[in-house]
C-alpha cells in the first residue's frame, strides 16, 4: 500500500513508569490515505496524542510497525514529511509573527526570497496578512493558533499533524477556525491527522473518524464519513451528521466504562 501516507500494523507503545507499565497504545492497525482528513477521538489516556507523536517521531513505538510515506518515522521526519501543530500555539514570544512562521524555513535553509514569499503566502492562507510585524502577545488566542498553523504549512509537508489545536479556544472561535481549516484543506490537498475531544468537531471536519479508548489505548471503531466534501456549518443539523455523531458516541461508550 505505497500510496498510504500513514500505515500502522500492530503498533504498541508501553511507557515504563514508577507505578508499573502504562500501555499507551496496544495493537493499533490503521492506515491514512493521501488527502484524507482523519480525526482521532477518545477520552484522556486513549493514546490519540501518543499515536500522533509516534507518527511525528516524538515517541518511539515499543512494538509493531509504522510507516510514514513508506519509510520509518525518523526518516520521514528528516525528509520534512509533516508539519506539527501543538495544543498550545507555542509561538516564540521574542519573534514577530512573520519570523515565527519563517522559523522552520530558517532552520531548513531556504533562501531569503523564498522565505519571504512563503511567509506571505501562508499568512494569506490563514487570513493573517497584515499581522506580520506583530508579536504573539498582541494577537488573540485564535489568531495565535492560526499563526502556528501557518508555521506548519510554511514548508512543503504534505501531512499536517494537529494535536487538539483548538482545544483551548471558545466555541465561537473554534467554529470559525474549523470552517477555515476545511477551506484550507480543500485548497492545499494536504493529508490531515487531527486529535480532538469534541464529537461535533470530529464529525464536521473528517472524512474518517478513529474512535479510541483507554487502558490499553486502542482503536475501537473506524468510521468513514458519508458527508460531502463541501460542508457549510449548517450541515451539523442534518440527519446524516447526527447519525455519524451518534455512532461516534456509541463507540466511545462501548470502549469506556464511565463508572471509573
Amino acid at each position: 500500500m505505497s500510496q498510504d501516507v500513514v500505515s500502522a500494523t500492530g503498533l504498541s507503545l508501553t511507557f515504563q513508569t514508577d507505578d508499573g507499565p502504562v500501555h499507551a497504545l496496544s495493537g493499533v492497525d490503521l492506515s491514512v490515505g493521501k488527502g484524507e482528513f482523519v480525526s482521532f477521538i477518545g477520552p484522556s489516556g486513549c493514546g490519540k496524542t501518543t499515536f500522533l507523536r509516534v507518527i511525528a517521531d516524538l515517541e518511539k513505538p515499543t512494538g509493531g510497525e509504522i510507516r510514514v510515506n513508506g519509510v520509518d518515522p525518523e526518516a520521514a521526519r528528516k525528509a520534512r514529511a509533516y508539519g506539527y501543530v501543538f495544543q498550545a500555539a507555542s509561538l516564540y514570544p521574542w519573534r514577530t509573527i512573520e519570523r515565527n512562521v519563517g522559523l522552520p524555513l530558517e532552520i531548513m535553509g531556504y533562501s531569503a526570497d523564498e522565505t519571504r514569499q512563503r511567509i506571505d503566502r501562508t499568512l494569506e492562507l490563514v487570513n493573517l496578512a497584515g499581522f506580520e510585524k506583530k508579536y504573539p502577545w498582541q494577537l488573540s488566542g485564535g489568531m495565535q493558533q492560526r499563526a502556528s498553523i501557518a508555521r506548519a504549512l510554511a514548508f512543503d509537508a504534505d501531512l499536517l499533524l494537529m494535536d487538539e489545536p483548538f482545544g483551548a479556544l471558545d466555541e465561537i472561535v473554534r467554529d470559525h477556525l474549523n470552517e477555515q481549516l476545511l477551506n484550507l484543506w480543500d485548497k492545499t490537498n494536504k493529508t490531515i491527522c487531527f486529535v480532538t475531544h469534541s464529537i461535533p468537531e470530529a464529525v464536521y471536519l473528517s472524512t474518517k473518524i478513529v474512535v479510541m479508548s483507554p487502558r490499553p489505548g486502542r482503536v475501537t471503531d473506524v468510521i468513514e464519513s458519508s458527508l460531502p466534501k463541501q460542508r457549510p456549518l449548517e450541515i451539523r443539523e442534518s440527519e446524516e451528521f447526527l447519525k455519524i455523531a451518534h455512532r461516534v458516541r456509541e463507540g466511545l461508550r462501548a470502549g469506556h466504562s464511565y463508572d471509573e
Partner: protein
Amino acid sequence: MNARGKTIPVLTVISAVVVIWYACVVWMNAPFEYDKAERAGTEIGFSQVVSNTMNQERPVLPAAHQIAEEMYKTIVLKKITSKRSLVYHGWITLSATLLGFAIGTVLGILLAVGIVHNQAMDKSVMPWVIASQTIPILAIAPMIIVVLNAIGLSGLLPKALISTYLSFFPVVVGMVKGLRSPDRAQLDLMHTYSASTAQTFWKLRWPSSMPYLFTSLKIAIAISLVGAIVGELPTGAVAGLGARLLAGSYYGQTIQIWSALFTAAILAAVLVMIVGVAHSYVLRRMGQKPEGVVA
C-alpha cells in the same frame, strides 16, 4: 507604582535613617567628649557635647555631613591623578571589577552551556561550582594573589580573578535554569524540524535564557565589586577602594573609611542600574509585552 507615589515613602525612610544615624553619632561619640572634659578638669554641658560629637576629627561614628564633606573633597576637589582622590582609587577597583565581571560572565555562560548539553558535566560540575562558593573568599584571596604572583602574574589580573571567582557563580546557576526554560512543546517543535543542537541553542535556548541571564548579571556585577575590594584587603595593595579602607583602619581615619564605603556602595548601585537598563533594553528589543498592557 508611579514616581509620585514613591516619593513620600522613600523620603520617610531616608529621614528616619538620618535621624537614627545622628542619634547614634551623639550616643557613640559622647564618651570621648566627657573624658576630654574630665581630663581637662572642666564641666561640659549637654548641648556642647552634642555639637562637639558632630565635628570630631576621629569620631567612632562620623556624622553624615562629615562623610559628605570628605567625599566632596576627595571626589570633586582633588585632581584625579592624586593619590588621595577617590576617583583614582575608585577607578583602580572598578577596572578590576569590570575585568573580573567580564571573565566571570563568559566563564559562567560556558559552564552552563556545557552543563546543559553534556550529561557528564551535568552530573559532575555543579557540586564543584557550589563547593567553590562555600570557601570564604577572605581565606582564598591571598592564596590566589600569592600563587599568581609566583607564576609572574600581578597587578590587575589577580584582583580581577577574585571578582571572577565570585561572579561566575550566579551566572552558572541562572543560565543553567535559563537554557533549560523552554517548555516541552517548544523543544518538540525544534525536533519536528530536525533542527541541529546548535540551531536549537541559538534559536530557542539562548533567547529563552535572556531574562535569567540579566537577573544573574545584576547579582554578579555587585559581587564582582565586593571581590575586587576583598582582593585589595589582604594583599597590602596601595591603591583602590579596598586599600583606602585598610589605610583608614590602620590610622583610625573613620571618616576616610566611611567615605570609601559609601563610594563603593554608590558605585555598586550605579553598576547594577546600568545592567538593569541593558536588561530592559534587550527585552524591549525582543518584543517583550510592556508592563500594564492587557492584550
